[in-house]
């Protein structure tokens, strides 16, 4: 998709891919034929720039034909560079600017709490994204309301657009920060489906707190020359690189 569009954010797509696969094919309750079903589990892609991975997951989950992925970012495509709920089923809110997903997901979770509904709300943020203050004001609200139906997954690939997170605005100790804000925290290998499945499928009822899963990942996972390499935040492969990447991924 990124190769054909000649633009995108492949590094973060690959760090998020295993998380998305686990959510859509092992954790969440949804029916792609009823994208507005009030009882569906919700997923909010806060790191909207990684729309490539998100669209691939939605297509694989049956929200739209996989063929449509070829139109990624083409003129008038439904697959905008950042997801738009009015174009595509399965997109809950329009994201792109960072720090928007968690507060919206919190609102969804509050709606579920008010109705005593049993759906869960999942939100995936980048780690650099946690430098946005909106996440932290919202962290207070979610903990205050004991939103056990809310799960935040942090794609902790330790790289942001320009450099390592720890060389830009230190996030560590990230788990302690979330605990201090009143969240239940789990740390997992974000490329290990069994570990992800374990923490994401654990019963939310009775936890009494929102859940933060810090998923340790690598930007560009699965492609040797992109692996943990900051230049692939929004790099685009040439033909040779594309072929090598596809060979390594298969």
């Amino acid at each position, binding site marked *: 998709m990124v190769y054909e569009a000649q633009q995108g954010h492949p590094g973060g797509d690959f760090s998020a891919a295993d998380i998305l696969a686990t959510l859509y094919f092992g954790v969440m309750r949804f029916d792609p034929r009823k994208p507005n079903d*009030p009882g569906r589990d919700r997923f909010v892609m806060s790191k909207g720039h990684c729309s490539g991975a998100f669209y691939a997951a939605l297509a694989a989950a049956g929200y739209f034909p996989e063929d449509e992925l070829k139109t990624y970012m083409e003129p008038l495509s439904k697959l905008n560079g950042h997801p738009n709920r009015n174009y595509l089923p399965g997109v809950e809110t329009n994201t792109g600017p960072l720090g928007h997903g968690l507060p919206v997901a919190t609102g969804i979770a509050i*709606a579920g709490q008010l109705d005593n*509904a049993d759906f869960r709300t999942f939100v995936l943020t980048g780690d650099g994204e946690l430098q946005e203050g909106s996440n932290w004001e919202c962290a207070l609200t979610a903990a205050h309301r004991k939103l056990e139906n809310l799960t935040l997954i942090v794609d902790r690939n330790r790289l942001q657009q320009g450099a390592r997170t720890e060389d830009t605005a230190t996030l560590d100790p990230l788990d302690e920060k979330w605990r201090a804000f009143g969240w239940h925290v789990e740390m997992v290998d974000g490329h290990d489906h069994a570990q992800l499945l374990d923490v994401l499928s654990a019963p939310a009822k009775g936890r009494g707190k929102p859940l933060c899963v810090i998923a340790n990942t690598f930007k560009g996972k699965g492609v040797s020359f992109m692996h943990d390499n900051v230049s692939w935040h929004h790099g685009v492969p040439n033909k040779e690189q594309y072929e090598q990447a596809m060979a390594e991924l298969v």
Partner: protein
Amino acid sequence: MSAVEQTTDELFDCRESFAQTIEALAAEDPRIVTVVSDSVGSSKLGGFRTKFPDRMVNVGIAEQTLVAVGAGLANGGKVPFVSAASCFITGRAMEQVKADIAYSNVNVKLIGQSSGVAYGELGPTHHSIEDLAWLRLFNNMKLIVPADPWQTSEAIRAAAAHDGPVFVRISRMKVPALERSADARFEIGSAETLVEGDDATIIANGTMVHRAVAAARLLADEGIATRVVNMATVNPLDEAAIAAAADTGAIVTLEEHSVRGGLGGAVAELVATTNPVPMRILGFPGFVPTGSAEFLFDHFGLNPAGIADAVRQTVARKR
């Protein structure tokens, strides 16, 4: 001259109308919830909290969360009325208003309280004379600036009935109840003519409408028949009413807002590209000096005498 006369001197705080209406609507529609940022008192929502304690979400002093939580609640099937001081719900949370509400096109009602210069001496940080200019850029967001208690109540009902984003701009400045015929109705996008006249038109909204009516009375005494149009909806505009205003040959707009980009700007964009006629835009030039709201209105000529002067000058430029 007039179909509208003030029958009493009683003045009303439109926040009370908002609060009574939202309580009545909530009793009818279980989907309605309110969302506040420690802004219960300033939104006059104490009664709502007492009656519907589980249907008020107070996120704390956190406007970005305030607006985004509104978007999330709409996703979860609620009809949220998100209420806070207009200066903060817009300026502080503008990207959430843009991306989470307008661009996502969700069914959220934003209530901007104590707009304009209502906070007077507290100064421009707390004034909200930029809000309409900012929000007018979101083409799918309905913008309503009611002029009195009846219209506030009608605007809240219309907002609840509309499926999509709406911003209602409410003042804490007390205003008289405008007299209307018994069959008066409010509809989003429809202006109302409060005073008939063919020599010039004042297009006003919000707290300025009753002042426009008073100015028209002064002008009638000297033979300038001035129409007063209450343009309560700034988006979408009532284009027919503006075209008819242009036919009077002179337009003065009047709002408790900056002269840049608000009602005046909206009217000017349309008039300039359809039927250009002499215009004046009355409002505030920018950040204002220290003073009460009443002082600021007088200081910037937003009183009947100042408005009448502007009409006379504009009529003198008629072609």
